[in-house]
Structures are given as structure tokens and as C-alpha cells.
């Protein structure tokens, strides 16, 4: 454990409702780091957050916050704050009272609590809403109030559980940028749970990709994108997902063991290469000025990302090749990444 650990998980296990959901997680989040936990629903992301907060007991392992073992402390003693997906604002309290709630129940003098609530509200841009009640706020405004409430107490760890999932797309993109800027300003150790890969790639200092209660890979967004550790990460991050073909399939590469899987993103597929494999275009999805062509090549489907203007027609015969330097190799049995020799 290094000296600047904000949060440390060691062999953390949890079994809410009797079935083990977290299978021995190890993770270290540095102070002032924003770590995004990314995974499909049911991966155990929210359970992880709840175990860190103490809302769900750990059945094994340790949780340390700011170099303090908090595994057996109750939530209120862990000095964390949490932003819930539903925001969990109190409908009967004003925005100011909502933000100050934590300080009031901890017996902070009222004047000080009010002043700090006002500053926190201003920090997230909802200073003009202090006298309103949640029922009078829009979704985006409620989200800001929930953020302000998490900020106000300067906790050791911020936990955010899909905080943007109830916002419409435009607001989500805007708020995402604001959260990143906010984290840049106020710092703090943040664990941010999402199933949205774009959110993870944009926000995270590092991303922990989670699947079935285990981490598949914990790394920087760059590394997750360029060197996915497993086929799961490779296909979960990126849209459309990475193509995975057996090495003995239609697209062959010299010096590759035939038991491996080759992976390549849709954007490195080259259409019309005279040396490429023959394929038939099955379907073309046009998304603005780009198009995703689904091509049947010798019993395998290959997705190619092409310019909409140069897209092939459905049913057309095309020759498919791949820019080989951009290919990833995975062990077919374990799904783990294999170095390209």
C-alpha cells in the first residue's frame, strides 16, 4: 500500500442475498484519482460501490479508505459520500437543506453548514436554486444538487453510482464535461460507476472493466483502448465492437499460432484490397457520415467502419483485408491477450 492511497481493496468479496457477487477484488485508487468502474449491468458495479460505502457487508477481504481499515465500520464512519442514480434528494427539504443535511445531522453549527452549502452549490452551478425544493427542479438541476451534497463535506472518497443515467443525451454530455472539470478543480478520490463506455473513456483517469464480479482489466483509457487485456474488454469497449476471428479463419496472418483469436476494430478493416478475402455485404448501418458494413466472410461476420459516402451496397461482393499492425491477438482458450511477436 503506497502512501497516497485514497482507496484500497484487498481480496474483497460480497454476497448480497446469499450469492457471491464480488469474487475477490483487488484495487488501489490513488488520492485525487478518478477511477471509472465500467461493466454491463449485473457485473456487480453497484454492489462494489455499496460495499465500499458500507451499505452492504463484505464477506471477505478488506476495504481501506485513506489508509484506514474501514471494513467493519458503519457507513457513517467511513467518511465517504455518495451520489445515487436516483439522486435520493429529500422532497421535503429545500436545496440548501438537502445539501446541508449531512452537516446538520453531524451537529455542524447551522450558520457554518449554510455557508458551506451555499459554496458547494455555487461550485456546481446551482447557487441560484438554494431556496427551491426538489419537486421544482429539472433532472439536470437535481443532479447538480446531489453532486453539491456529495462535495460539501470534503469526504475521503466520492462514490458516484451511474449519476448521469437519468439525464437526456445532451445534458449527459454537458454534465460529464462538468464533472471532469469539477474533479480537476476540487480533486478528491472518486469511484464512478457506469455502463457507458464513452463516459468511462472521457472521464476516467483509469478504468476498471468489470465482468461477473471480477475486474477484467484496470488501466488508463488509452491502454484499455489500445491494449485490451481480454476479449471481453476488447468487445465491450468500442462501438461497434471489435471483430474477433479465429486465426485459422479467412483472414490469416503469418507467424500467428493457429489456436489464437485475432481481434481488429471495425476502423482498421480495409475494403477493396485485391489481396483480401472475399466477402458479401449483409447489412449496412449508416450513422451520419460514417457507415458500419456487416460483411459475411467465409462463415464469419466482419464489421467495417467506412465513410458513408463510400459504403458498399448490400449484397455486393467485396474483398476484405485488415491493417495488420493494428491487430490484437488473444488466446482462444482463456480469452487473454497474447503479445504479437
Amino acid at each position, binding site marked *: 500500500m503506497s502512501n497516497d492511497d485514497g482507496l484500497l481493496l484487498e481480496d474483497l468479496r460480497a454476497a448480497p442475498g446469499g450469492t457471491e457477487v464480488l469474487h475477490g477484488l483487488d484495487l488501489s485508487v490513488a488520492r485525487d484519482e478518478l477511477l471509472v468502474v465500467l461493466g454491463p449491468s449485473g457485473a456487480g458495479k453497484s454492489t462494489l460501490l455499496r460495499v465500499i460505502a458500507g*451499505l452492504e457487508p463484505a464477506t471477505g477481504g478488506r476495504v481501506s479508505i485513506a489508509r484506514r481499515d474501514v471494513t467493519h465500520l458503519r457507513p*457513517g464512519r467511513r467518511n465517504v459520500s455518495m451520489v445515487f442514480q436516483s439522486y435520493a434528494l*429529500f*422532497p421535503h*427539504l429545500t436545496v440548501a437543506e438537502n445539501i446541508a443535511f*449531512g452537516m446538520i445531522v453531524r451537529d455542524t453549527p447551522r450558520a457554518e453548514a449554510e455557508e458551506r452549502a451555499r459554496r458547494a452549490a455555487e461550485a456546481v452551478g446551482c447557487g441560484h436554486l438554494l431556496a427551491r425544493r426538489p419537486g*421544482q427542479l429539472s433532472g439536470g438541476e437535481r443532479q447538480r444538487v446531489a453532486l453539491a451534497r456529495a462535495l460539501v463535506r470534503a469526504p475521503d472518497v466520492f462514490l458516484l453510482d451511474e449519476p448521469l443515467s437519468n439525464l437526456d443525451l445532451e445534458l449527459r454530455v454537458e454534465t460529464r464535461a462538468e464533472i471532469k472539470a469539477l474533479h480537476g478543480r476540487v480533486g478528491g478520490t472518486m469511484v464512478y460507476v457506469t455502463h457507458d463506455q464513452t463516459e468511462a473513456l472521457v472521464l476516467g483517469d483509469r478504468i476498471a472493466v468489470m465482468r461477473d464480479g471480477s475486474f477484467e482489466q484496470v488501466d488508463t483509457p488509452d491502454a484499455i483502448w489500445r491494449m485490451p487485456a481480454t476479449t471481453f474488454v476488447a468487445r465491450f469497449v468500442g462501438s461497434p465492437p471489435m471483430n474477433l476471428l479465429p486465426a485459422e479463419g479467412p483472414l490469416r496472418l503469418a507467424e500467428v499460432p493457429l489456436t489464437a483469436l485475432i481481434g481488429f476494430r471495425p476502423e482498421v478493416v480495409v475494403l477493396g484490397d485485391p489481396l483480401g478475402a472475399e466477402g458479401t455485404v449483409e447489412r449496412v448501418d449508416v450513422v451520419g457520415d460514417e457507415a458500419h458494413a456487416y460483411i459475411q466472410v467465409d462463415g464469419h461476420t466482419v464489421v467495417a467502419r467506412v465513410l458513408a459516402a463510400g459504403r458498399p451496397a448490400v449484397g455486393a461482393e467485396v474483398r476484405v483485408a485488415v491493417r495488420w499492425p493494428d491487430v490484437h491477438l488473444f488466446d482462444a482458450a482463456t480469452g487473454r491477450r497474447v503479445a504479437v511477436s
Partner: protein
Amino acid sequence: MRSGHRDADRRQLALMLAPYLVGLVALVLLPAGVTLAMAFAEYDLIQAPRWVGLGNFVELTRDPAFRAALTNSLVFAAIAVPARLLIALGLALLLHRRTRVVGAARTSAVLPTAVPEIAYGLLWLWLLNPFYGPINQLLRLGGENGLTVLGRTPPQWLTDPTDAQAGIILMSLFTIGETFIILLAARRALPPEVYELAAIEDATGWDVFRRVTLPLMAPVLGLLLLRDTIQSFQFSFVPALIVTEGGPPPYATTYLSLFVYRNAFEYLRYGYAAAATLVMLLLTVAAVGLQWRLIRRYERHTTAERG
């Protein structure tokens, strides 16, 4: 065409509403009208009703039985209504989680309400018996010469005026099944996240109750308070009729409902009883109006219209 279609709709609507409307008119509005009229008359089923103007009301103000009944009813409502609500709330908050024994506990909380009123009254007649009733036997436990441990005489439930009034209130505290179920449902409908947030902020149990549970349940509590106040003039009727028979003398447990019942059906003074009923109704309206204003003020203070 179109208007014909609407006429058909209306006919169907009228047809479907008819049973309810007939019942409402014949069983509620008509008797209410008759009661209102009769409050200003004298009628004993034998002679034709005689118009007496405000005579009945003037007599009510001078009637010691009515004055006792009025006071008893108000005291009963002032104690029993809040106490019932608090007990039901306490049980609901205690039993809203799913654990092993909770099912049985919830059932026993509701059970007394399921007992027919007369049977319930007779049961309490035995429970409250000063000599062999289980309550006083329990109170005498450890004491000597029929006294309690503290050396005091156990309550004379059915013969001492104050003890009898306390007994009737005691009886009413167990028939809270319906209130309990409503509060249980209301508590279970509250979002768990606000409680998790309170836990993260290390709010104490008292703070959670005061700052989270109570305000969030306030609308339901207010509604139940209104309902129980309206009904409180009736809770006391069967117990007073069966257990204490309005006594000990002269009128220790004569409540307005029993007063009306006696005057109408025992003394055959229908006009007089109707006047007392009218007073009871006006009192209920006044109490409900007052509470309604308090609740509205509270709501304006705490919640605003949804945006």
C-alpha cells in the same frame, strides 16, 4: 350521429351509477335530511312530530347527561386518536423489515381489529374484571392482600369513573389494524436510497425518524388523523354500550354516540337525539377543518408543486 353516441354513453353511465346513487340518496342523504329537520322537532314514534324550533338545543345546553357526554367524547378523542396513531406508527416502523418473526408479529397487530366488535367488548368485560380479570391479576402479581407491588389498589376498571374512562381508551388502542396496515405500506413505499444516504451521513436513529421518516410519511399520517378523528365518536360506542353501559353512574362513560342511541332508541326522543347528532356532526366538521388547515399549512411549508 355523434350526439346519439354520447347519449348512449350517458345512459350507460347513469345505469351504472344508479345503484350507488339510489343507495346514497335512500340510505344517507334522506336520513340526513330527516335528521336535520327532526332536530327542530319533537317525535316519539306515536304522536305526530311537533315543531319546537331551537327547543331541543336549548335543552341540550342544560342537560347534565349531554354535557358529560360531550366532555367525555372530546377527552376520549384527544387521547385515543393520537395514541392510536402513535402506536400504529410505532408498530409499522418496528415491523416494516422482513425478518423471521415479523410475519407473525404483523398478524397479531392486525388480529384485534378482525374480532367482531361485540365479541371484542365481551372479551374486555372479562379482561377488565376487577377481581378475576387477567389484567388486575397481573397487576396484583407480587403484591399482598389484593394490592399491587407498590401497595396500591389496582384500578377499579368498571366501577371507578376515571378508571372506566381509561379502560375504554385502553380498549380502543388495540383495534388499530387498518391504520397499521396503511402505515406499513406507506413506510415500505419510501425509497431506500434516502435511508442509505442518511446512513452514509451517520444520522442517528432519532435524526432519521425526525428528519426523514416523519416528514415523508406526514401526508399519510395527516390523512389518518383526519379519518380517526371523524371515526372517534364511533370507536367509543360499542365499548361503552357493552362493557360499561355508560357508567359508572351517572355518566362517566356516556359518550355522544351512546347519548344519541339512548335518547332515540330507549327514551324514544327522536328529535332530541337528532339535535345531539347535529352537534356531534358540527363538532367533527370543526375538528376536521382545524386539522385540515394545519396539514395544509404544513404541506405548503414543506412541499411545493412538482415541476
